[in-house]
């Protein structure tokens, strides 16, 4: 008897098991996946933003995205003008597989990107709870990004990603049929190192 696979209604409902059953992607831990990471000094503007924002409540995904995640991505963009964060865009790639929905922060290395443009190199998801609950969602978006690139005959096959609760960041990498999950967690408490980790992801596509 054929196994019946339930298709998630969008990225948000994707679990690691769905990624395996629907997309054939399995996962593996990757020890210090981005090492070595070079610290990047924090600009005065980012310091001021984060100091100001620290006094405000950030008890949900929206507030964390506005007050912690976007300022950090904007800082790294200022050092890598070709890597624009595209925030909150609908990214419907293969609806019949549930590969549809909104990606929190999608990074294209197309310097002219105004909306989602080829190639998509990384996808970052902001959450307000446990990072490990969202590997499936982020992995599905990364898999969709690769499909999106392939349809345009683009030769970028490795897609990076991360899940962040604003304070901690865990990076992912989709290579071949494997979703690698970094065992190292980066944190806003060590901001130069976190900026360096994001930079390391962008360097991969330079």
């Amino acid at each position: 008897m054929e196994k019946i696979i339930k298709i998630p209604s969008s990225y948000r409902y994707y679990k690691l098991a769905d990624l395996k059953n629907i997309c054939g992607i399995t996962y593996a831990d990757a020890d210090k996946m981005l090492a070595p990471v070079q610290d990047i000094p924090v600009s005065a503007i980012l310091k001021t933003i984060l100091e100001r924002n620290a006094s405000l409540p950030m008890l949900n995904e929206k507030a964390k995205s506005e007050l912690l995640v976007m300022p950090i991505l904007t800082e790294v963009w200022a050092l890598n003008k070709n890597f624009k964060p595209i925030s909150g865009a609908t990214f419907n790639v293969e609806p019949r597989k549930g590969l549809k929905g909104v990606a929190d922060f999608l990074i294209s290395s197309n310097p002219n990107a105004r909306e989602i443009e080829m190639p998509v190199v990384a996808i970052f998801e902001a959450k307000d709870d446990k990072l490990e609950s969202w590997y499936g969602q982020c992995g599905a978006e990364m898999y969709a990004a690769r499909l999106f690139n392939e349809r345009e005959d683009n030769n970028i096959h490795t897609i990076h990603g991360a899940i962040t609760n604003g304070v901690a960041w865990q990076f992912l990498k989709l290579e071949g049929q494997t979703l690698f999950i970094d065992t190292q967690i980066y944190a806003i408490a060590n901001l130069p190192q976190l900026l360096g980790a994001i930079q390391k992801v962008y360097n991969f596509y330079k």
Partner: protein
Amino acid sequence: MARKNGKPSSYSDYTLEDLRAILGLDNRKENLNLLHTLVPPSDFLVTTLQRNQVLPINTEKARAELLITPILVEWITQNPQKLQYLSGNTFDVEPQKFLKGRCDYLFTKHLSLDIVAPVVAIFEAKDDNVDNWYGQCGAEMYAAKLFNEQKNEPYPIIYGAVTDGYEWVFLRLENNVLLIDKERYYLRNLAELLGVLKTIMDFYV
């Protein structure tokens, strides 16, 4: 969210007609006279917004993160301990009247991390024509009024605003009428926009 049986399912589908039919709330345009003094933006805010405007900004989420939050954070943190800034909170007040859902930005006089009465202002971020969203913002403002009454902190006036990041329209709920300001304020004139926000803060503190 989608309308069901001709009724809104939450704040986000509320129209001006719903405000009248469900809540008995009238509306009209009025000169709210909110600009009393210019408040020059900090160099820091100007730099931040200039930088952010270069990024893709097509969605409501991007506009909130890049254009709206920096201004509201400047307003709140330059006047510490006056109003609490709550972004993205769920504010379910009267589900039978569809007064439920999330508010983009909600301000209270109480400085706690949860929503404590009185709620004094609610702002909504949008990525399209601001005129289409007076119903939603009005419903949230009306819910704030109800919430304050339920908590024995009645407040005669609730302020609101709808913005697409570039253009701001302010609203005032008073005597069961939603007043929509005739004047509009703009990102490109921050001193005026911050001046209006100051008027609203001064009104409550």
